[in-house]
């Protein structure tokens, strides 16, 4: 019952972003026994009301990082134009992008610094965005919705991307062709149903979504919903519980 207040770092995604997102996760693994600190906090909580407030403050402080990263760049948009604002936002988050008509990618280096060359081309729209492992959420998506020629979007391993984010992606319905949603811990089937607006989608990656109970069935339904799209990342047998040969077959996503 006393589940950990601090989450564990996911081993699959070694991105530093996870260190700043410290809260109860929708983890697929069973909760490990609480550490000494958590047990101590729980005992204190039984006796004092203020411990609850302190824990609330600490989770509020942690979510402040996410909120700061996803602020709306209204002034930048007014001053430099929507394309430059979108580019600045993406680079600030730690992602990369490529303008339409150019072949070089703009990315920050390992220390987070990036060059401001994109200011010189305020009229070029962005064609490909790579936001893997960043802290983007549905609020920050407002900075990018102006890019109506976006062809490819990679959201691999983003801890804040949830169903409401997917519902907002309908603005790219006329242009988006590739979407990568693998390893996002908060996406469920309800959000994937919102992808029906992306009629031009040709490639969708839904591997390792921990909250999907039946990845194989979801893949079939997605293929029916988007007939021209290739859905990768889930085998048809995933999620099926095989009643014959129980010893040799291990249920892959048995929760």
């Amino acid at each position: 019952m006393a589940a950990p207040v601090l989450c564990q770092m996911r081993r699959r995604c070694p991105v530093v972003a996870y260190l700043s997102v410290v809260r109860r996760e929708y983890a697929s693994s069973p909760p490990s026994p609480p550490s000494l600190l958590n047990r101590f906090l729980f005992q204190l909580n039984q006796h004092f009301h203020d411990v609850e407030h302190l824990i609330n403050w600490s989770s509020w402080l942690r979510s402040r990082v996410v909120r700061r990263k996803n602020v709306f760049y209204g002034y930048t948009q007014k001053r430099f134009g929507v394309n430059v604002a979108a580019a600045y936002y993406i680079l600030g988050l730690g992602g990369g992008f490529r303008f339409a008509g150019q072949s070089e990618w703009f990315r920050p280096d390992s220390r987070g610094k990036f060059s401001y060359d994109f200011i010189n081309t305020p009229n070029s729209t962005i064609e490909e965005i790579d936001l893997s492992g960043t802290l983007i959420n549905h609020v920050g998506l407002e900075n990018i919705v102006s890019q109506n020629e976006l062809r490819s979007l990679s959201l691999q391993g983003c801890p804040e991307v949830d169903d409401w984010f997917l519902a907002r992606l309908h603005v790219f319905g006329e242009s988006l062709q590739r979407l990568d949603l693998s390893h996002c811990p908060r996406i469920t089937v309800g959000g994937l149903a919102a992808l029906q607006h992306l009629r031009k989608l040709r490639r969708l990656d839904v591997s390792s979504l921990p909250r999907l109970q039946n990845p194989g069935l979801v893949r079939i339904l997605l293929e029916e919903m988007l007939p021209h799209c290739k859905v990768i990342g889930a085998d048809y047998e995933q999620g099926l519980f095989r009643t014959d040969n129980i010893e040799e077959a291990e249920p892959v996503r048995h929760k």
Partner: protein
Amino acid sequence: MMKWYRALRGLSGAAHRALPGRHAVLHRCSFSTSAAARKDFFQDLENQFKAFREKATAAMPGSDWSPIQVTKGLPPERADIVIVGGGVMGWSVAYWLKRKERVRDGVRVLVVEKDPTYSQASSVLSCGGIRQQFSLKENILLSLASADFMKNINDHLAVVNEDPVDLQFNHSGYLFLASQDEAHIMEENYVTQRDLGAKVTLLSPTQVKERFPWINTDGVVLASYGLENEGWFDPWTLLNAFRCKAMSMGVYQCFGEVTGFRCSSQKAETMDGDPVNIKRIKYVDVRMPNSLEYQPVECAVVVNAAGASSGKIADMLGIGQGPKQTMAGIPLPVEPRKRYVYVVHCPDGPGLECPFLVDYSGFYVRREGLGGNYITGMSPEETEEPDVTNLEVDHEYFHHKVWPVLCHRAPPFQCLKVSGAWAGYYDYNTFDQNAIVGMHPLVNNMFFATGFSGHGLQQSPAIGRAVAELILDGGFQTIDLSAFDFKRILYQEPILERNIV
């Protein structure tokens, strides 16, 4: 001496009996006829000592034993705000009241619910849809605000050390189909909705056919599709989330039925010189379940969020029992109306892209889960309203009324099997099918949050905030709901919603 020794052995008999070997053998091999009786006596002695120890701890200070047996579950004798009705609306108001109080324990809120199993509560029997496609500005704003609340629901309703709230929200949108008669209304509504920020789009019949090839577009002239913030979710999760968070903030919950009020009344005159009685509720009588015992709760404000039973609560105060032509003679126009929901299994039905389809003939259908199950229903005509004394389902209604229109509109549903059905009440506002939010002019401390006629669940977070603002701040701060005041019923000025499902 021997007796004492045996008594001592009996007292620690448990330990001895646990040891295998010599002592057990000795006991079994004893030949005395009174050994069994002696064993019982010492066993009993052990139990007697244990009982004595328990009684001693209860008698010591620090235990909660009292010689006066108080009935469990009685509400407190005094509360600042009593909310009648523990559905999603009542708990939403309770949560927002606690959230808006400036000081810790600033208001004592009590929520009174008559059925702890929620077996007939409209909140949990609802289909759980949320849409912004209304014609009234207030309804659209309320739905938008509620969708925003649900977007960040864990910022609002997460309790420390509990699982995060998961509403299981399906973002599939609502698709309304309009015939020739309603197309112009749909266009006007579309303009209003877009102005207020709802993300809705209009589709022509060809576009509908291209997106949803399983829909038969005969007779459809225009369709309106919600792109964002529309879909359906689990109402029980929302109710529980509100309840757990509100109780963690200190709201009192009582399971009991409100059987009466004790008021004080003052004489006053209207502007025209007619005498009126202004009442003020002093006590709410809450009767315990399966009992005649009741507790009068002294209160300052009462919120009527009783859903389908709101009319009964208003009757207890005498609203509607005065002379016919006066203010006191106009009753609260909320009555329960029964609606059926049928769960069908259709193997050829649409998949993940199935929206919440609402046709102009009045029927609706939406996907439920991933296994080819769907939920469907239809509002009956005014003249064919079913009997509301129970929640029995009429399956003939499905076969004669719902299935023909369903098959006509969506041919894959011709081959289906009804796997289940349930019925629930709408708290139907017979006057204009819109919410009644606000104070009653003749009962100075009763606030209404009722009459939602089927769209209460989707507006509950925003209405809770509005009622809390009304009570604690004296007026609406975020969304102005003065159009929903009770006065429109007294002046007989209905505000009609043109998009009722």
